[in-house]
């Protein structure tokens, strides 16, 4: 590669800054809102005129107006999304292994079905579930959300893992056995290290998708017994009935966003390869 000239270098820096501003502006805006006082909220400026941590106190400290609502929903969200992700990734790993390594009829049908399910309009599923869950007692329970979340996490897991597993040089396993490793050793020393990053990446992507859900969350819950964070945010009220929940919602939004940003920063390369392999591999 040729060395860049100065104008080119400046051009690239400008472009990168533009990309950063575009990508981070809303996050920065809501971060700033989370530090505003109720009266300072209407100053009409992006940067708070008066800084406060009161909004974080409302959602995190005992006695805060939204503390119980927020922390309970946070626990629901983490628990439900983790379980839905774990089930999906375990089942999808077996499924993708079969697709990548075994020869059987119906492989294509499985992949096409996964694709069709992933573009399925969630609202079309939620009405019948709403009715059914109420009659069989799954309404407003963890299980009542875990089951529909599988329709979000399973297809993407199958698709992404199948793409990952196809690239694994499976002959290594046989080679290790020829070299005297037991079948289990061969599997553990060759296949597992190669497959683990794919499984891990898939779990991150599936978790993001479950964590992001809103439609099931507001439709299939009615109390904080199972209500996840995105749905709970729309139920926030201010400290008093005359107070706007803007500050508390912003603070809660920042609290649930920070872990996501950290994960993205650490694993960006893997997430990109997972997303692109799962979606287009032409």
């Amino acid at each position, binding site marked *: 590669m040729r060395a860049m000239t100065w104008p080119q270098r400046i051009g690239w820096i400008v472009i990168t800054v533009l990309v*950063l501003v575009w990508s981070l502006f*809303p996050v920065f805006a809501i971060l700033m809102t989370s530090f505003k006082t109720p009266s300072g909220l209407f100053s009409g400026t992006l940067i708070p005129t008066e800084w406060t941590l009161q909004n974080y106190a409302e959602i995190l400290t005992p006695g805060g107006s939204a503390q119980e609502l927020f922390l309970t929903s946070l626990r629901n969200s983490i628990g439900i999304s983790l379980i839905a992700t774990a089930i999906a990734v375990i089942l999808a790993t077996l499924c993708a292994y079969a697709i990548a390594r075994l020869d059987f009829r119906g492989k294509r049908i499985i992949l096409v079905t*996964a694709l069709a399910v992933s573009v*399925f309009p969630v*609202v079309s599923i939620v*009405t019948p579930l709403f009715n059914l869950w109420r009659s069989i007692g799954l309404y407003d329970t963890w299980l009542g959300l875990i089951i529909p979340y599988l329709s979000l996490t399973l297809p993407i897991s199958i698709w992404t893992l199948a793409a990952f597993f196809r690239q694994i040089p499976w002959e290594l396993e046989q080679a290790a056995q020829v070299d005297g490793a037991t079948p289990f050793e061969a599997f553990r020393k060759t296949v597992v290290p190669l497959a683990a990053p794919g499984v891990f990446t898939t779990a991150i992507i599936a978790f993001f998708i479950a964590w992001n859900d809103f439609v099931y969350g507001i439709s299939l819950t009615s109390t904080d017994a199972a209500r996840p964070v995105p749905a709970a945010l729309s139920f926030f009220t201010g400290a008093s009935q005359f107070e706007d929940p803007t500050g508390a919602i912003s603070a809660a939004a920042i609290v649930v966003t920070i872990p996501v940003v950290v994960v993205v920063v650490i694993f960006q390369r893997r997430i990109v390869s997972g997303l692109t392999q799962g979606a287009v591999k*032409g």
Partner: protein
Amino acid sequence: MSAATTSRDEKARMPRAKRSERSRAEARLGWMLAGPAFGLMLLVTLYPIGQALYDSLFSLRLTAPDERELIWFGNYAVVLGDPALWESMGVTLVITVITVILELILGFALALVMHRAAKKLRGLARTAILVPYGIVTVVAAFAWFYAFDINSGGFVNSWLSWIPGFDPDLNWFAHPGTSLFVIILSEVWKTTPFISLLLLSGLAQVPGDLEEAAKVDGATGAEIMRRVILPNMKAAIMVAVLFRTLEAFRIFDNIYIMTAGANGTEALSLLAYNTSIGRLEIGLGSAISVLLFLSVLVIAAIFIKGFKVDLAGGKNS
């Protein structure tokens, strides 16, 4: 002698029989491993959609569950005869078309940045571009909503006050056009990363020597883009557009947060939700859900048959 022939015959047949038995065992194992995931996936989607089809044939509202009555396609007649449905369909199509076009342009620009940027900047750009992808849609919706909404301390109006004729008291969410503007903006912000990643993987597949050859022959940058890069990316572009179209068509979260469907922003998903879960009209709501599902099928069919998008192309190899 006859015994000798049979044994030779058997010998000749043996490997084939063995192979087919082996392949049958392999198929059995394959389905044993893949079956649970496949079955569960079908169960959690096909069953509800079947139930929705069934429910849509009944006059049923949860406020009066005992008055349930089979009315066949009565709900569809009501829904299709209601201008609200066609308004919803119109809004959904407007949102879908505009967001997909904007995202395609912006996503392509971002993909080019990621593709061409020097190593040091590439990681930074890629991380920044991925941030909107990871953020919960509802959070993104609140972020944009608070920036614009004058009732929750939006600051955008004071930023725009230098524009002659701009009303500093403009309530963005009181008018259909301005509401849709913010809704589309938040949708574009949140989902462009996905499309740009798909386009990036398409860009990576454009043969570099073709580009080089065109350059040597004196082609300009625009010509290379039009004659070399775009034709080679056609498949990736079509897949990206199809995915995003289907996703944009079921837009829900940001509209719910910003307007809840008021002021002419009630997209199909919101209409279905407000009918069934809002007003407990399960029969009518199911009919709208089925129509939404059929619309998605029709769009997918148009893309796959009309534009020859091969979704699983190359995936089985």
